[in-house]
C-alpha cells in the first residue's frame, strides 16, 4: 500500500472510517474464512470445538459464532502445551519448517507462551497497528521516532521503517534516559513508542541532574505512547507539566493491539484485524459496563486465537469517535487476575499506586501486591525504594498513605528499586506476585 498524502488525516481513510455495517460485513467474511482454517490446522481449536460439539459448518454468521463457538483461554493453551508436548500450545497452523520466527508473549500472567510467526505470509492484509496510529498522531515519513522497547516481540522497528520514519533505538531501561534526553534534543523526533511511569520518573531525575529542560526534551514530540500498565498519577502529572501529549496503548487479548487517538477518549481496536466481544464477568454479579474482553483473530493465519478470553476487564463502545474513526474503542480497567479482596474491600494495583509514589523514596512507583489468593486476610505489598532512606520511616509513611487511600492497613516489605526492576518483563514489573 502506498503512503497517503502527508496532509491526509488518516493513513487508511477507507478502512479507518468504514461504516459500521461494512465493518460487520468485512468481519463476517474474514471470520468465516478463518474458522475452517483454524479448525483444520490448529490442534487446540480443533480439540476445543470437538469437545464442545461444534463444527465450522454450524457457523454461518457472526450471530452463530457468538451463540455457539467455545472459548479458549491462556490456561487451556498452557495445558495443551504441557500435556501434549506441543511448544505452541496447539495454536500453530503451518508446518513447523515454514515458520520464520518463534517469539513469545510478555509473561505478565505467568510463564511466557510461544508465538509462532510466518513473516510475509501471516500478517495483516493492510497496514494497521502502529502505522495507522502513529500517522494519526501526526508522525510523517522522514521524521525520527524514538523507540524505547524490548526485543522479545521481534523487530518492531520494521513497522516504523515501513512508515518511512527513522527509528532511534533505546532499551526500555531507566539508565537509557540520559541518552534519550540527549538524542531527543539532537534529532527532534516526533513520535515515541513507548514509555511508562518508571521512565518518566527517570527522565525527571536526569533533567534535574543534567540541567535539561524536560519541556525542551519533549517539545518536538507529537505523541508519546505509554503501554504495559496504567500510567501512575504522578508520572501523568509530570508529563502533562512538560506539555507531553500522551497516548495510551494496550494489547487486545494477545490477538491485536489498541491505541488512543487524538481525542483521548478510549483506545481504538482495528476491527479488520480482530473480532472483539465483551462478556459478563462471571463472578461479579452485575458488573455494570465492566466486561471481560474476548478476541478472535481475523488476519493472523499462523497462530489464530479463536474466542480467546483475555482476563482483561474493559469498558467498550462502538459509537463513532469524535476523531471520525468508526472502529470500536475500549477503556482498560484492570485484570481479573490482579484483584484481591481484603476485609471485604476489592483492591487493584492502581488503588495503591498513588499512595506508594506519594512517599519520596518510593516515587518510582515500584511495588507488587502479594496475592496468595483472590480473598486474603491482609494486604501485603512489596515496595521498592531508592537511595539511603530510613527504612522504618519509609515503611511507616507508605503504610499510612495506603491506609488513607484504601481503608486497609497493609503489611509492607521494602526492597531496593533495582530488585524489582530486574524482575521484568522488560517493559513493566509484575504488579502481582504469588509470594
Amino acid at each position, binding site marked *: 500500500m502506498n503512503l497517503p498524502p502527508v496532509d491526509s488525516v488518516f493513513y487508511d481513510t477507507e478502512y479507518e472510517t468504514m461504516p459500521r455495517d461494512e465493518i460487520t460485513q468485512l468481519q463476517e467474511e474474514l471470520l468465516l474464512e478463518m474458522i475452517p482454517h483454524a479448525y483444520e490446522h490448529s490442534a487446540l481449536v480443533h480439540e476445543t470445538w470437538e469437545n464442545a460439539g461444534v463444527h465450522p459448518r454450524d457457523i454461518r454468521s457472526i450471530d452463530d459464532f457468538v451463540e455457539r463457538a467455545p472459548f479458549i483461554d491462556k490456561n487451556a493453551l498452557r495445558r495443551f502445551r504441557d500435556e501434549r508436548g506441543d511448544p505452541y500450545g496447539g495454536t500453530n497452523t503451518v508446518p513447523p519448517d515454514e515458520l520464520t520466527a518463534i*517469539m513469545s508473549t510478555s509473561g505478565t500472567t505467568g510463564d511466557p507462551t510461544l508465538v509462532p510467526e510466518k513473516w510475509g505470509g501471516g500478517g495483516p492484509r493492510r497496514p494497521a497497528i502502529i502505522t495507522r496510529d502513529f500517522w494519526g498522531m501526526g508522525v510523517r515519513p522522514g521524521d525520527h521516532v524514538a523507540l524505547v522497547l524490548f526485543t522479545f516481540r521481534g523487530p518492531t522497528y520494521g513497522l516504523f521503517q515501513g512508515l518511512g520514519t527513522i527509528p532511534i533505538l533505546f532499551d526500555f531501561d531507566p539508565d537509557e534516559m540520559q541518552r534519550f534526553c540527549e538524542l531527543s534534543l539532537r534529532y527532534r523526533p516526533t513520535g515515541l513508542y513507548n514509555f511508562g511511569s518508571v521512565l518518566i520518573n527517570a527522565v525527571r531525575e536526569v533533567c534535574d541532574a543534567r540541567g535539561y529542560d524536560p519541556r525542551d526534551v519533549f517539545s518536538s514530540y507529537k505523541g508519546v505512547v505509554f503501554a504495559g500498565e496504567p500510567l501512575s498519577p504522578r508520572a501523568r502529572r509530570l508529563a502533562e507539566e512538560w506539555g507531553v501529549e500522551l497516548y495510551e496503548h494496550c494489547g487486545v487479548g494477545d490477538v491485536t493491539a489498541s491505541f488512543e487517538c487524538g481525542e483521548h477518549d478510549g483506545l481504538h481496536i482495528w476491527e479488520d484485524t480482530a473480532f472483539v466481544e465483551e462478556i459478563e464477568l462471571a463472578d461479579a454479579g452485575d458488573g455494570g459496563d465492566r466486561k471481560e474482553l474476548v478476541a478472535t483473530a481475523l488476519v493472523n493465519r499462523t497462530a489464530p486465537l479463536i474466542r480467546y478470553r483475555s482476563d482483561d476487564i474493559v469498558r467498550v463502545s462502538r459509537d463513532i469517535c469524535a476523531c471520525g474513526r468508526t472502529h470500536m474503542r475500549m477503556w482498560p480497567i484492570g485484570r481479573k487476575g490482579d484483584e484481591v479482596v481484603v476485609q471485604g474491600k476489592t483492591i487493584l494495583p492502581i488503588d495503591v499506586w498513588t499512595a506508594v509514589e506519594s512517599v519520596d523514596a518510593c516515587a518510582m512507583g515500584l511495588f507488587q501486591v502479594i496475592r496468595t489468593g483472590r480473598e486474603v486476610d491482609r494486604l501485603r505489598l512489596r515496595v521498592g525504594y531508592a537511595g539511603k532512606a530510613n527504612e522504618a520511616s519509609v515503611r511507616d509513611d507508605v503504610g499510612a498513605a495506603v491506609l488513607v487511600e484504601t481503608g486497609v492497613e497493609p503489611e509492607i516489605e521494602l526492597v531496593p528499586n533495582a530488585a524489582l526492576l530486574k524482575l521484568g518483563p522488560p517493559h513493566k514489573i509484575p504488579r502481582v506476585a504469588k509470594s
Partner: protein
Amino acid sequence: MTPWGVGSYEGPGGREPWEISHEEIQRDMGTASKTLAELGVGPGQRVLFCSMLSEAGQFWPLIVGAMLSGAQLSCADATEGEAVRVAMFTRLIEYRAVLGVTPAILDGLDALGHPYADVFAGIEVIGARPGAYERLRAAGLSPRRFVLCGPAVAIADAPDAPALVSASEWEIAGDGDRVVVTGRRERATTFERTHTAVRGDVVGNGVVWRT
C-alpha cells in the same frame, strides 16, 4: 545514503549514537548470512538472539540473515529478568545456536536455580559475551566468543578461537589495551580507528578480550 535508523555502540566512555544507512545494513545482511552459515545455522535450524534494542544495528543483519538462510529465529532481551524467557525457549525449542549470552542472563539463571548445563544442553553454538564466556566454560560448556566491537559483530568460528569480525567490512587493531575499529567501506557514520569498550588482543581480524 538512505537513513535506516540510529543505533548505538559501546565506546570507552559509554554508549555512543550510531547513524546507520539502509545500504550498509543490506551489506551487513549478506555478511551475517555467511557467518551464520559457517556456524551451521541454515534451513531447518533455529537460533536464539539475546540482545537489547539499542543493539539492533548490530543484530538486525543477523536476524534477517537467519531469515534469508531459511533458519527460524527467536529473540530475548539480554537482561537478568529475561533469563526466564531464555530458559523457556531452550526448554521448549531445539536451537542450533544461542548468540549474545550476557553475564546478566547468567545471573538470572543463577537466581532461578537453573544450571547452565541444563539450560544450554545440546546447543551446538553458544555465543557468549565477555564475562559470560568464562562462566560457561567454568561450568564445563564449550561456548564461543561473541562480542560487539563497537559497531562490528565478532563471533568465533570455534570454541577457544578469537571472535572474528567481517574482514571485508571492518579492520580491527589494538591501541594500548583497547580494540579500535575502522570501517573498510562507506557508512553513514565514519569509523576510523574508533575506540571501543572492548579491551583485548587483536589477532588478524579476531579479538581475544581481557576481562
